[in-house]
């Protein structure tokens, strides 16, 4: 049994501090600091070109950062080359050894380490079981489907029992259905092996499905780290609110009317929840589309806005409406309804509970 202190240190498996990387003129990473816990799946999420791959490559030792440090399992690995880091890296295109069988691909790392052939066979067997590749061990990569190739890449990376598993967009070369299947497959493999894992993705849904925690990157900066629930319910910036899920955002100066705090947006007063902040500050309010209810009759409680339906989309799970109101176009998602509540051109009232809306904390910071 490890001492409590040790266990605590152990909890922070990977620690990145102040990592910066600049390519000629592009600042790919600026002062990124991050802690990944032992045994978790951490998703690096962000739009194309935000620096996800660069950060993953820095962790794997494939790219040397300009400054900052990386600590893995209590060891400073900043200056250690990729050959000696003991990381498992899964490339976006898998980068399998096309001239070797599945078995030889998986065995490669162990052969480098001169493990005994009995041990190699045993480990390959275990990994074939884990990744459900039994019966395929004598095939060459080109004789495998995309999904199978991806599993070989994962098995190959896990074979050396790496400290950490790094995957760069592992599902991007697969079709939508297979993607969802392999996602849960990967989740199972990770839970069974218990390896600390970092997955890069630009797909929010993927990050939510896989990640114990998510790190959101924007233009080389880590803007927010949290569980999927935290990211969705309490985004810290406008970027986070827009990138993660759909959102309705309103900005305005705060005012107090009849004892209620709110912001004034397009000349209309919108109440904001809790937090007795100062008057006449600029704030941004977030209301998620599924928190807005839509109906033909005006409801009793504020806030209520009248509007005209511009778009109706059937989503399978309910409908999605785009509604023009005095405070702008709002998105409404109505997942529980059995039938549509309004048609295009119809007059409707939108309403939400004040407590279901959320004031972005760092609006001021972002604006300045």
């Amino acid at each position, binding site marked *: 049994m490890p001492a409590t202190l040790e266990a605590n240190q152990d909890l922070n498996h990977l620690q990145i501090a102040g990592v910066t990387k600049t390519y000629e003129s592009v600042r790919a990473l600026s002062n990124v600091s991050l802690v990944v816990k032992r045994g978790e799946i951490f998703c690096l999420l962000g739009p194309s070109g935000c620096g996800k791959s660069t950060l993953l490559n820095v962790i794997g030792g494939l790219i040397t950062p300009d400054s900052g440090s990386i600590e893995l399992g209590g060891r400073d690995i900043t200056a250690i080359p990729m050959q000696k880091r003991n990381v498992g890296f899964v490339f976006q295109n898998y*980068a399998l050894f*096309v001239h070797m069988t599945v078995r030889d691909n998986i065995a490669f790392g162990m052969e480098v380490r001169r493990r005994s052939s009995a041990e190699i066979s045993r480990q390959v067997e275990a990994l074939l079981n884990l990744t459900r590749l039994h019966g395929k061990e004598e095939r060459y990569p080109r004789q495998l489907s995309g999904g199978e190739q991806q599993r070989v890449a994962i098995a190959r990376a896990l074979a050396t029992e790496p400290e950490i598993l790094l995957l760069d967009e592992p599902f991007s070369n697969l079709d939508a259905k297979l993607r969802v299947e392999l996602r849960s497959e990967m989740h199972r493999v990770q839970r069974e092996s218990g390896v600390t894992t970092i997955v890069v993705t630009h797909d929010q849904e993927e990050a939510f499905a896989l990640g114990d925690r998510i790190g959101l990157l924007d233009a080389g900066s880590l803007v927010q780290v949290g569980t999927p629930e935290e990211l969705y319910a309490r985004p810290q910036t406008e970027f986070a609110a827009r990138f993660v899920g759909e959102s309705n955002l309103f900005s305005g100066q705060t005012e107090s009317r009849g004892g209620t705090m709110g912001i004034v947006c397009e000349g209309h007063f919108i109440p904001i929840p809790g937090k007795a902040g100062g008057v006449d500050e600029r704030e941004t309010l977030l209301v998620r589309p599924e928190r807005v209810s839509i109906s033909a009759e005006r409801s009793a409680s504020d806030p209520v806005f009248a509007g005209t339906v511009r778009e109706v989309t059937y989503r399978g799970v309910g409908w999605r409406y785009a509604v023009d109101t005095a405070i702008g176009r709002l998105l409404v998602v109505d997942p529980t309804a059995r039938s549509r509540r309004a048609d295009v051109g119809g007059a409707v009232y939108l309403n939400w509970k004040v407590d279901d809306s959320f004031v972005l904390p760092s609006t001021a910071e972002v604006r300045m």
Partner: protein
Amino acid sequence: MRFNLLRVYSWLMAALIVMPIAVVVTVSLTAEGSVRFPPQHWGLRWFLEAFTERSFVQAFLFSVEAAAAVAVIASVLGLTSALALVRYSFRGSKFIQGFVMAPLLLPHLVIAIGLLQLFAALGITTSPGGLIAGHVAVVFPFVLRLSLGGLAGIDPNVEKAAYTLGATRLYVFRRVTLPLMASPVLSGAVMAFLLSFDETVISIFTSVPGRTTLPVMIFNYAEQRSDPLIAAVSSIMVIVAIIAIAIADRSVGLLNLLSGGQVGELNELNH
């Protein structure tokens, strides 16, 4: 309509290339004492003659040895140069790439005369050392091209993957890069062999009596006499070339590679 014209054109071009060879082979199959096309009587007489003519047999064996040496040397140089130029691209590596292609443009005569003077200055014996060096110089661009092409076909991530698995540079070269380069390198070797086996101009300048290649032998012989023996020896050269290409194509897919086939598809040979 256009399709048919194209077809006719292709066949004409093919015929143009094959015709001289066909004539030589036909002439060599005569049983008569002099060259006549087509021969009146057929026979393998001149082939037997060629195999009993000591100087021809000697020249043939020397040609094969020299071509084999050229193939090995050029392949090793081609592979290592390609690796240096692509993997460790340095200042001026583009310039060097262009520079080593120069023998493609220069008349072999110029190269031969240059080499002769160089060898004289350095005190190098012209044959076989100088001859092989000269051949390597003219076949090198072809071999390098094939190696560069093969290397460009290797995904750099594949080598990186091997590094992240703990492999050293040498290990990655041995287990990953080299096997993936096998088909372009072997194709290059076969090309080098054939080009060297065929090379005449440089060989004329660098040959010494007793260490003469077959084409030089044929050249000298044809200057003095013109009997079907020359045709028979030439036919043997054609047959050697065909056999070499057939072997290479079976094992490496040379034709596929030369006509722009995918390198990645050819790696079956490693197993």
